[in-house]
Structure formats: C-alpha cells, structure tokens
C-alpha cells in the first residue's frame, strides 16, 4: 500500500500550500517529462492556474493542484512528442544542456551516493516514461506523491476503481523495467 507522503492536512495559507508541494511537483513533472526546464515551467503554470481557485476551501487545493499539473504535463508531453518528430524529420538533435547549478556538488553528500542516485533517478524516469500515460499518472500521484485513492481519482478525472487498475498495471510493468535496480 502506498505511503502517505503528501501533507495529510491541507495548509490553510495558500502560499504555505504551494510551498509544501512545489518541490514534489517539480520532481514529479521532471520524472514524467524527462526535461528540467519543461518541468519547472509546468509547475509554474500550474501555480498560476491554481491561483484562480484560491478562494475555494483549502481541502480542495490538493486535488485541484495535482489535476492542473497533470494536465500541464500531458500538454507538454504531447508538444514534446511532436517537436521530437519534427526534429527527427529535419535531421536535428535536441541538445539538452544541463543547468550548471544542478551540477554543483553538495558538500555534505557522498559523491558515490550522489552518482548512484542520479543513475537510479534517470532509470526511474525512463521506465516511467515508457508506461502508458494513465498508468504513469496513477503511479506518480498515488505511489510517489502519496495521494489517497480518492484524491488520485479526482486529480485524474476517473473512478477509484480505474485508479487501482492503472496503478496495479503500472507497478507490474515497473517491476520488470527496474529489474536492474536489484
């Protein structure tokens, strides 16, 4: 059963709510899109759109935010797919230069551990991006974000049963894709 890592009690203050989800939202978008800048843009746009709902009860912010972010990720994923096809037709290759700040070593961390984590992160992202979209969304929201089934269903716009089905298939597929982890 997935753990509940997301805040169980919604933040009353809107800024505090965004602050509590922004890092996890970025990491989720990064895993789904495989592109750091796209992920940052997706989170920023999701925040802007959520502001329109800030007068709603605070309990609604969580499913609304993940629903908006999921939609942002889906839109970008489609655009990137088209862009890659166009680039392939034109015979060009997209250069994804890493952010220099991202490459700065953390002085308090073991470099070997950091390297292993970076490799594992890349493998997890690659495996997730090979999943069908709905399975990927269910895994990211339910398993990694720690939303409960009802919140995941609200964010995905489907029933609880569909969430369980997508999640079960995603976990089975990832178990195969991530064999190398063990």
């Amino acid at each position, binding site marked *: 059963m*997935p*753990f509940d*890592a997301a805040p169980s009690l919604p933040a009353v203050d*809107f*800024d505090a709510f*965004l*602050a509590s989800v*922004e*890092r*996890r939202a*970025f*990491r989720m978008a990064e*895993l789904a899109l495989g592109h*750091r800048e796209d992920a*940052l843009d997706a*989170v*920023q746009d999701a*925040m*802007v759109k*959520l*502001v329109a709902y800030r007068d709603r009860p605070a309990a609604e912010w969580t499913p609304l935010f993940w629903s908006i972010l999921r939609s942002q990720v889906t839109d970008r994923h489609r655009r990137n797919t088209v862009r890659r096809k166009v680039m392939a037709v034109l015979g060009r290759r997209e250069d994804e230069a890493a*952010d*220099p*700040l*991202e490459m*700065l070593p*953390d002085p308090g*961390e073991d470099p070997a551990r950091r390297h292993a*984590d970076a490799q*594992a*992160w890349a493998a*997890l992202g690659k495996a997730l991006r090979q999943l069908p979209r709905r399975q990927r969304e269910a895994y990211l929201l339910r*398993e*990694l974000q720690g939303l409960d089934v009802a919140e995941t269903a609200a964010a995905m716009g489907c029933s609880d049963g569909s969430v369980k089905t997508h999640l079960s298939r995603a*976990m*089975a597929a*990832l*178990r195969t894709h*991530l064999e190398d*982890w*063990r």
Partner: protein
Amino acid sequence: MSRPDPRRDRVHDDARDLFERASERLDQGAAFRLRRARHEAQQPRPRRLPAFVPAGAFAAAVLALGLAWWLPPAGAPALPDTRVAGTDPVPTTELDALLAEEDPEVYLWLADAPVATAMGPRP
C-alpha cells in the same frame, strides 16, 4: 489469498525513497526558480478585458457613425407635412400637366359672371 511479492515492495519502496531524497535535496537553481514562480503566481495580475469588449466597442462606434450620417441634424427645422391624411400627394409634374390642359377663358368668364345672393344678383 496470495502472499505479497516481496520484490515488488522493495522496488517501489526504493522508488519512493529516491523520490523523497530528490524532492528534499533540490539544487539551488531549481529551488530558487520554484520560490520565484510561487511569488509571481500570487502577484495581482492586470485584469484583461474579454475579447468581445473591443469588438463590441468597435461595432457600437460604427453604428453611431451610421446613425449620425443617416439622421438629419438636430438644429434643422422640420418641414411641415402638407399631405392630406388618406390621400396620396399629387406629383408636381402631373399637376402642371392638368393645368395646361384647362382653358383659361373659362376662368375669366367665371370671374365676370353675376353671383346670386339673398338680396338679388350681385353684379
């Protein structure tokens, strides 16, 4: 009831742990960008007019210009309506033609003829 697959749990537990570490240890560049995005998202934005407002204003301006061109100016005196209710006005050309066909001698004779009154004929 089947026993849970221990390998499955370990893989997904590893994925959760990795996700947690990645979220906690965000690089400074991304953390800064996210903070800035959060603050900018909450700034009041200039209210944009809906797209139909400029179009409506343009249509209203065109209508006003059309009315101003079509209607007579407010200071001009209105012409009196000389038409008799229930009758169509006779065109001027037709009236002239009718008068031209009349004999003017008849009207001269009529002016000189005696007029009958209660006191007798008036010369």
